[in-house]
């Protein structure tokens, strides 16, 4: 990729990035992450337990959204990467229970990224419905492998009895105690830096602009000198790696892995979560995951027909707030600001 062209694109995109909207987004990001970090100090243990699952699901939804928002690619098989990482980590831990946690996560994520690189070579050659169908096929393939390869994956019984024992700098901490701040903060300690790195890369570097440029007009980007295939592939790999982080943390949090984590319906759930939270904001899917877990758990306790209500709520959001809940909050906030401005005039 030519440095001159990249610099030009960057310069063109820098202007709006410094806008007040960008500052508000950054402030919202800081607020969201701070809330997630301090949550265990003021919520119950069961809520912390739910939050642990929600942030893993949220990171998975963010990884999906890297493709959807930044590359305009709708993946129907993203659980393949999530599930692959979860199974990889379980198998690693069953073989080497004393593997240090950081090494374990890095190994899992690297292997998922390599898988992303291999599959991405095929997937990103097409866009639109063709890309979606290819990812759907890949998702179905990975589900079949998990379902049928009983000797390795445990088939429908799944894998259990694994838990990282070696936490290196935190010898007194344990992941064996669910619902405690220790488990949750350990998850966040890996999750937040990973998500922040992806956020910074896509929102604050020229490379992020390149990804958006390719999405906006691939032909023009190619004429400008971008290796459009390379840019899309790199974003695909980044998305797979982030899904890998989410899958690895999910496996640690649950203490078992089953075919649910690679199921096609899980690939659908993550789309719902991302759109619910708002795919327009990098952190929107994280908000969506927290709301999805909270609402679905409470609804399922109230009525066996909870999925109907959840489905109706989703349809309502798509119809009346297509930018998701984050977009809804943003537009309300902008209206308030506009009204205040008028009053001041």
């Amino acid at each position: 990729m030519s440095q001159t062209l990249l610099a030009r694109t960057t310069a063109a995109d820098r202007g709006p990035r410094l806008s007040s909207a960008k500052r508000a987004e950054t402030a919202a990001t800081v607020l969201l992450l701070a809330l997630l970090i301090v949550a265990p100090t003021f919520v119950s243990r069961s809520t912390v337990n739910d939050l642990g699952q929600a942030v893993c699901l949220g990171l998975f939804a963010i990884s999906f959204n890297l493709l959807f928002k930044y590359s305009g690619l709708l993946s129907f098989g993203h659980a393949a990467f999530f599930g692959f990482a979860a199974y990889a980590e379980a198998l690693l831990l069953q073989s080497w229970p004393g593997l240090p946690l950081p090494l374990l996560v890095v190994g899992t994520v690297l292997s998922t990224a390599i898988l992303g690189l291999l599959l991405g070579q095929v997937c990103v050659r097409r866009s639109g419905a063709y890309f979606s169908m290819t990812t759907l096929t890949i998702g179905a393939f990975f589900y079949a492998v998990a379902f049928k390869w009983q000797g390795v994956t445990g088939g429908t019984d799944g894998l259990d009895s694994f838990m990282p024992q070696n936490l290196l700098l935190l010898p007194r901490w344990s992941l064996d105690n669910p619902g405690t701040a220790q488990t949750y903060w350990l998850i966040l300690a890996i999750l937040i830096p990973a998500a922040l790195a992806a956020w910074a890369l896509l929102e604050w570097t020229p490379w992020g602009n390149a990804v958006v440029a390719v999405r906006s007009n691939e032909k023009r980007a190619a004429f400008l000198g971008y290796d459009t295939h390379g840019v899309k592939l790199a974003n695909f790999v980044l998305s797979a790696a982030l899904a890998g982080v989410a899958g690895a943390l999910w496996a640690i949090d649950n203490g078992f892995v089953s075919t649910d984590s690679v199921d096609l319906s899980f690939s659908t759930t993550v789309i719902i979560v991302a759109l619910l939270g708002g795919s327009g904001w990098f952190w929107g899917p994280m908000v969506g995951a927290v709301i999805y877990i909270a609402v679905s758990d409470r609804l399922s306790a109230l009525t066996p027909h909870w999925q109907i209500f959840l489905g109706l709520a989703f349809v309502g959001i798509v119809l009346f707030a297509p930018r998701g809940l984050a977009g809804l909050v943003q537009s309300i906030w902008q209206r308030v600001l506009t009204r205040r401005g008028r009053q001041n005039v």
Partner: protein
Amino acid sequence: MRGLRLFRYTLMATAAAVGLHVAAARAADDKPIVFVAAIIESGPFKVTDNQNLAGVRYAVDQINKSGGINGHPIKLDIVDTELNAAATRRKVTDAILNDDAKAIIGASGSDIVNALVSVGQKNHVPVFAFAGEADDMTGARFQPALFRFASNTSMHASAIVYAMKHFYPNVKKVFLLDEDYAFGHESEAGFKAALKTVAPGVEVAGSVFHPRGVADFSPYLQQIQASGADFVLTADWGADLVKLMTQAQSFGLKPRIGGTFVADPEILKGIGNAGIGDIGADVYQPTIDTPENKAFVTAWHTGHAGSDVPWPTASVGKSYITTELAAAIFTKAGSTDFDTVVKTAEGFKLDSIAGPLVIRACDHQVQIGQATGQVVPTNNNPYPFPFIGTAFIAPLSAIAVAPQDTGNPRCSSAAAN
């Protein structure tokens, strides 16, 4: 005068304090013990678990009516597993953290039971399983938190083969037909092992795995007919089993079917006479011919006439006995402490409506004979459709998995000792 008033106030305050103390003590004595039941409450498999939930609820009602667990009533928390392991893990953990649940009762699906065991092990809460038959749960993957009343795949397969020998003593060749996934493969291995030990003269004429959800069984029925088999053994369930049984009748298949899940009214009520002559087995059948079970069946029907489950089923019986077993263990333990409960449960004996049972100490697998039966016309059974006739019990000695064969290291050392 002032002193008298002071004395009166002091007396009233003391009486109030004593009253409050007594009330508080009584409240502490009556404090319920929370059992969490993991049940499929939504989606297409809800129908199956309606029976399990009915059994658990009935058991809890009966136990509470007779004084609860050492005076403590059981409070039942029901969580929807969604047939999803992660959701199950999250919701059951919440029930433990919020309500201080002391026992987990569940659940349909081996992966769901594994999730429950993971939660139970982490939180030190025992899991009492009425379903989830994978052998290795109490074998190589044994975890102390799990106590399984449901039989394992090997016991279940042995019971079917034992029943085949009883009802069809002239069978020489069998055909094995199973679904192509973990449970199907495990069941096929179970049938083969059972044939060697329970019916050594019977040979396997052929075997095939078919995809789950297959619409047309005719290719498999042709294979069965061509093999010359005179009996079919299968662990198919749900829609696959219904299609197999109805299409076998339309096809004119002569060999009868022995199926792990044949004795399920949800299967038999929709297939008319297609199942007559087929055999099934499970830990419990409503047709067990004992006074205790007959009384249970009558009492159940009296309380549930007009409901979705007017007669007890195998699932009802299993979930009922599992809950009864858990409560009996807690009662004997006199404590809800995990280690005490586990220690009490190992070797625990109970006279249940399915017969006497014992929890084997080394692998926590309940040891009990199995109720087998042949599908008979309507007038010979409690249901308004052909159902399993009077149960024939496959004795434990014929179907039990020897401790050293479980793959559980605790059992190997126990057997060696």
